């Protein structure tokens, strides 16, 4: 490869050009300030749209052709149906059938149900992916098989990139559980109800052409209109947009693992002893058994003390809904719904509000919600001695996960990563993480089952826990303890070929994913 590389502010080698576009290396938290104006899609005229509001075309294929599908088109889709999505693969089946090449896929996240797209990456139908490359798609990327370079962005970073014109979407396909012929659409009802459609907001506003696909067409008006028909070009009615039972994510039950429950308990105790849990506080705990259990412990503490939280940021789920309905939290500010209780609550409860990456996470806006949250609970595959953390690659170097809202959440007042000290034989605390997704200065606390490390920058937290019976250790001690049990792992071997880049929330490149040997 002839690409040029440069060291960024974290000392990571990053390409200065990706898929023919020049790039800015990461400069530090809050350092890079863009200039200029936002991207704008072409001006439309009502004269070109049916006055009766009926934008229905017979099929997705017709809609794609009418939208101007061609070689090199940039096409977006969304992960509201998670592993039950039925639309993304169809788009590329059609593109393949029509013989188009070098398409760019911009999903808000990818799932295993889309692993069959590897065949289109192989035959050149798809040139590269900008979004996330999970599971099989990640492995494919890591093996250096993708034609172009992958770009990973956070949910907020995706909004930022579309808003700023870093990525220009030619055709957005928004799969909607309910929609009307005008294109108004909602996710909170219909056979494939998934809650909200926030991830598609940017696409609806900025894509050149917008297609809404639904299996539940209602007469105008579809209310609530989470997606405004005024942005929509074509509406397609399909048999099924998603498989309802797979829409509910697999990680929406509290954990039964005693080790993870211990992590959750320690994390809740930490938040209690530091005074983070107080009347009117706010929190965000993502999906995953441990995070959900922490929410349950928070609820117990609030109930005991007669206190309540002002708001919780979702990923909503039945546990959070229970807190809302019990009066333990005033509002759920929901970014995506993880189970059907969340979907129901969004329809029924006034205090359950749907948000989007624009309101919650976009770094190129006039503030966002994420930085106002008192405490956020996140995961990581690895953390290093400088508290830098990795969520996308495993210690063997293989890309397996997307960033999700993880980077955006780091801006909360306290970021806690409850993680096991080792997984099987793989220690989680490393000298240096394989891939930096978040800079250590934003990561405050690592909770492991064998001890808690507080970032030395957080002298306030260290001071508060001076007399605690929690096992407070340094991150070096934790690393040594993990390696005493597992041994010191070798470093994964990479070639000098960059296969993907990790974007920071401001669009700069924070790290590179390399081809594994």
């Amino acid at each position, binding site marked *: 490869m002839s690409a040029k590389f440069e060291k960024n502010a974290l000392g990571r080698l990053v390409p200065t050009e990706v898929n023919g576009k020049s790039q800015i290396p990461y400069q530090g938290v809050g350092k890079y300030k863009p200039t200029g104006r936002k991207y704008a899609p072409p001006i439309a005229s009502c004269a070109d749209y049916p006055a009766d509001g009926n934008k229905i075309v017979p099929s997705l294929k017709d809609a794609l052709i009418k939208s101007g599908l061609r070689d090199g088109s940039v096409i977006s889709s969304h992960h509201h149906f998670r592993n039950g999505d039925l639309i993304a693969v169809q788009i590329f089946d059609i593109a393949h059938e029509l013989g188009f090449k070098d398409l760019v896929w911009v999903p808000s996240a990818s799932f295993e149900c889309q692993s069959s797209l590897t065949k289109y990456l192989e035959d050149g139908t798809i040139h590269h992916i900008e979004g996330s490359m999970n599971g099989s798609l990640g492995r494919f990327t890591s093996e250096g098989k993708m034609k172009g370079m992958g770009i990973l962005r956070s949910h907020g970073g995706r909004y930022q990139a579309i808003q700023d014109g870093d990525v220009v979407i030619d055709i957005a396909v928004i799969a909607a559980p309910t929609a009307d012929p005008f294109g108004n659409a909602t996710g909170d009802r219909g056979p494939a109800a998934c809650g909200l459609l926030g991830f598609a907001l940017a696409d609806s506003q900025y894509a050149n052409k917008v297609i809404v696909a639904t299996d539940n067409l209602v007469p105008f008006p579809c209310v609530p209109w989470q997606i405004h028909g005024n942005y929509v070009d074509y509406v397609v009615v399909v048999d099924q947009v998603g498989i309802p039972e797979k829409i509910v994510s697999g990680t929406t039950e509290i954990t039964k693992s*005693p*080790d993870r*429950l*211990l992590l959750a308990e320690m994390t809740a105790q930490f938040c209690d002893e530091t005074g983070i849990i107080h009347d009117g506080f706010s929190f965000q705990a993502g999906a995953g058994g441990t995070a959900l259990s922490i929410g349950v412990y928070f609820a117990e503490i609030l109930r005991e003390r007669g206190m309540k939280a002002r708001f919780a940021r979702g990923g909503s789920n039945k546990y959070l809904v229970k807190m809302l309905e019990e009066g333990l939290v005033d509002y759920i500010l929901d970014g995506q719904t993880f189970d059907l209780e969340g979907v129901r609550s969004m329809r029924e409860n006034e205090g359950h509000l749907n948000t989007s990456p624009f309101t919650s996470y976009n770094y190129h806006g006039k503030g966002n919600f994420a930085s106002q949250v008192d405490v956020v609970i996140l995961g990581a595959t690895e953390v290093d001695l400088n508290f830098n953390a990795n969520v996308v690659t495993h*210690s*063997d*170097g293989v890309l397996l996960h997307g960033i999700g809202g993880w980077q955006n959440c780091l801006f909360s007042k306290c970021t806690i990563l409850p993680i096991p000290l080792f*997984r*099987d*034989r*793989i220690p989680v605390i490393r000298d240096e993480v394989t891939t930096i997704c978040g800079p250590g200065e934003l990561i405050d606390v690592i909770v492991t*089952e*064998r001890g808690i490390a507080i970032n030395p920058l957080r002298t306030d937290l260290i001071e508060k826990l001076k007399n605690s019976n929690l096992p407070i250790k340094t991150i070096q001690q934790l690393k040594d303890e993990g390696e005493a*049990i*597992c*041994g010191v*792992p*070798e470093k*994964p*071997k990479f070639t000098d070929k960059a296969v993907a880049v990790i974007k920071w929330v401001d669009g700069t490149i924070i790290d590179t994913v390399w081809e*594994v040997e």
Partner: protein
Amino acid sequence: MDTTISIGNKGKGVRSDCSVTLTLTNKNGIDLQIDSKVKSLFGKQIEQLARQILAFYEIENAILLVEDSGALPFVMAARIEAAVRKLITTEKEFLLPMLEQNLYQTVRERNRFSRLYLPGNTPSLMINAGIHHPDGIILDLEDAVAPDKKYEASFVVRNALRNLDFYGTERMVRINQVPRGLEDLDYIVPQNVNLILVPKCESASQIHQVNERIETIKVKHGIKGNIWLMPIIESALGVIRSYDIATAAPNVVAMAIGLEDYTADLGTKRTNEGNESFFARSQVVNACRAAGIQPIDSVFSDVGDMEGLKNNVLRSKSLGFDGMGCIHPRQIKVIHDNFAPETDEIEKAKKIVNAFFEATERGLGVVSLGTKMIDPPVVKRAQRTIDVAIKTGKLKQNWREEEHVS
């Protein structure tokens, strides 16, 4: 003799373990095949360990396949050694260096509220057991290990006693029923095991046999420290002979009852209420108290029913038991919380301990509370109540200072 053997576990759902298949050959040196999910990170170390063990046993020609699901070194070493020793006759043991933190001894009167059973051939359940802080951890060689896996389990249990940190809990092993269990002792006695559970115990002579074997091994290895015994009564005959068993030897510090086998022996069903075992439980408590040792109750097997467990603990405590077994780490807290002294017990103990300190400060030989004299054993018991209350978070470490200030 066989020339090929497979040892260990593999397949879906297996974690922190490995399977090794060893074939002894006559030529071509060592053919080592490693199929590991952590190969890119630990491949070299796995290879090094495997070759080290084969060299230790002077094996020069063999095919060794290691199918690894992230086994820690002590597990992998146990698997490979077990395979080698199945194929060649040797007394030599391949031992990794003993963890210094595993060299502690436990005291006779130690609290034994909870003891967590861990199947001896399932390393993944052992690795994090200590972080849940039960009073004791039982590496089980008996009922939790399938008959055809007992051989290989002894190596895992032995290595766990040496190389796995149990964070200060009492390190126990349940051996197989005597006489088979006597062979287990060879693996565990030299590894600073703190306490041995003797299952399905029906006579004092079984305890004597265990102690004789322990003595022989201690002499052979020059071992000094105490090894405590906890016989488990699991039959009608055992219940009848419980006092003989409890007093069989000075190192018997506790005696447990095992209700699954006992109720089967009676020809009845075990219920949560436990009426069918009331006599046996009371008899065991009575025998233990008469012998001056700790009576320990059976496990509660529904791990999802915390309310049922709590009721069971309270019933157990009221019968006079000092602790019970558990089969899931989440049971530990419920057991500790409910075996712990209640508020009025703590208050009473505080008064007695205060009276003792005041008497000592004034140089008085006799402790009295109001007009009542208090005997030394009462003070000792009160102090233990205080210790337990502190340990279970029901009383602050510095309670005397705080109460004197106010």
